[in-house]
């Protein structure tokens, strides 16, 4: 199955009004599920993916043939145990793994949408995915969970649907995208748009692809996902398959070769316009402003139990920003737990094999389910 048309999808026939004002209708949401929904329907976990993620959380991704993006956390006998829980994950709208996005074909012009796709927000993504609850006839989820942009969706979900989940676990995220976050995203977007093959977003219709721009965007972003110490420890100044410097602009250093590799594999699985739209959605995310400066109001209607996790070496979504969410929840007496996990793996810690994190996640989910 490596045809995008064969992924599991629902077609949403309820009109969805986007934040930009446009109304979309009859649009696809691609999803994947793991484990079984029990009779009581009280074991469903909705996972939200990050910027470059997709619905293939666990197992083998049928397109990349690699492990799903959260294989360390999700699967049979994993921290989020699919023998016990029904895990559901959808591709966000704006994405490129089967949900409505800029690589879809316009029904009238029969051309690929490109930049005529509407600008979407985290709020739009969450509202679109909510249709999966109706589809599976799930009245209340047990848990919503996600890291990075997935965490932002967790916050937005509880804001939009206050009592549709028992527990919520936003990981390594923020309630308001910072200037630094926006700056890095803008760097990525400018890199894509500076590629001559981007042709104002119309590359697919012209049978081109802005590979160079997209791969530089990925390289730059990748640096922000790692920590200085992590990079130093893994690569240091080690040379790539050579004994000495070559006095050229080839990849002398292992870190260069690593980044180039990250960039080149990324272009095979990700659409450049999707990258523009999704980073834009992240930049527009400001749950604090949505509530006129008082984040507590986002959660004041909710009885959802929160557990917030951050990582010591994450400088992209630092502990302080995660803690702001904890503070807002404590201010209204919400049930909120919080821990900062020690890790030198940077923002990417949540995707990697960090045993303390995985154990904590498992313990929180399992102990919350018992009390359910």
């Amino acid at each position, binding site marked *: 199955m490596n045809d995008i048309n064969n992924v599991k999808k629902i077609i949403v026939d309820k009109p969805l009004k986007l934040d930009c004002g446009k109304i979309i209708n009859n649009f696809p949401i691609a999803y994947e599920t793991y484990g079984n929904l029990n009779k009581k329907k009280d074991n469903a976990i909705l996972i939200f993916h990050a910027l470059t993620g997709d619905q293939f959380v666990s197992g083998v991704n049928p397109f990349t043939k690699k492990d799903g993006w959260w294989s360390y956390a999700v699967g049979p006998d994993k921290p989020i145990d699919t023998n016990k829980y029904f895990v559901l994950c959808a591709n966000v709208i704006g994405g490129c793994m089967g949900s409505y996005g800029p690589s879809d074909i316009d029904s009238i012009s029969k051309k690929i949408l490109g930049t005529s796709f509407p600008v979407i927000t985290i709020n739009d993504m969450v509202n679109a995915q909510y249709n999966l609850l109706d589809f599976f006839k799930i009245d209340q989820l047990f848990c919503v969970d996600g890291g990075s942009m997935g965490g932002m969706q967790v916050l937005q979900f509880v804001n939009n649907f206050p009592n549709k989940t028992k527990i919520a676990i936003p990981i390594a995220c923020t309630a308001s995208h910072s200037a630094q976050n926006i700056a890095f995203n803008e760097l990525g977007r400018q890199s894509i748009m500076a590629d001559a093959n981007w042709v104002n977003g119309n590359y697919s219709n012209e049978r081109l692809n802005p590979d160079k721009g997209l791969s530089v965007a990925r390289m730059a972003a990748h640096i922000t996902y790692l920590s200085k110490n992590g990079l130093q420890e893994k690569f240091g100044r080690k040379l790539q398959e050579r004994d000495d410097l070559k006095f050229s602009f080839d990849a002398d250093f292992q870190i260069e070769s690593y980044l180039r590799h990250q960039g080149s594999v990324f272009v095979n699985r990700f659409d450049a316009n999707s990258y523009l739209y999704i980073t834009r959605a992240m930049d527009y995310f400001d749950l604090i402003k949505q509530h006129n400066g008082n984040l507590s109001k986002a959660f004041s209607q909710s009885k959802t*139990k929160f*557990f917030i996790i951050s990582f010591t070496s994450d400088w992209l979504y630092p502990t302080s920003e995660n803690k702001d969410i*904890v*503070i807002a929840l*404590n*201010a209204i*007496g919400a*049930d*909120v*737990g*919080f*821990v*900062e*996990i*020690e890790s030198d793996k940077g923002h990417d810690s949540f995707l990697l094999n960090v045993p*303390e994190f995985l*154990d*904590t996640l498992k*313990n*929180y989910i399992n*102990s*919350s389910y*018992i*009390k359910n």
Partner: protein
Amino acid sequence: MKQEFKIIANLIEKNTRVLDVGCGDGTLMEFLKNNKEIDIRGIEISKNKVQNCIGKGLTVIEGDAEKDLIQFPDHSFDYVILSQTLQAFLNPEQVISELLRVGKKAIVTIPNFGYWKLRLHLLIKGTMPVTRTLPDEWYNTPNIHMCTIKDFFNFCKDQKIHLYKSIALQNLKSSKINNSNIELKNLSAVLGIFLLEK
């Protein structure tokens, strides 16, 4: 210190909101949760201990009581508990005032430095006392602000903090502390347990 936990449990009324400051691995929280119908939260500085608490299904946030109590609104808990940690703070005075802002009432327990064995240790050996409840040497102890039951009694008087209940604990025996027996209790008690209100 199961006896301490039982006394604390007896001081707390049903259907109340309780915050355990410096909750450690959650032993007291678990005890109270199992024995009282209350809504209990914890705050703890050690990552490992927070993780232990999470594993037990307790709601705990990682944080420093000297900095992070500020996030809780005035009187957002019925009781705030501080069990045997007051002496470890840089500024116990400020911590007590924060406890009484966040909680309608506070329950504070202190290891009594006036206990006769400690006094005798210092008198005879001339070195800082090391005991079962205070096992560290002077150079590595987290207990930087030790006080006696009498000190705490006087402190509350000076700060105009109302002491609802003062209990002396000596092994399994507990007894009330009042103005007339304070000198004796200050000598005989291992632990002081206080219920206070501003």
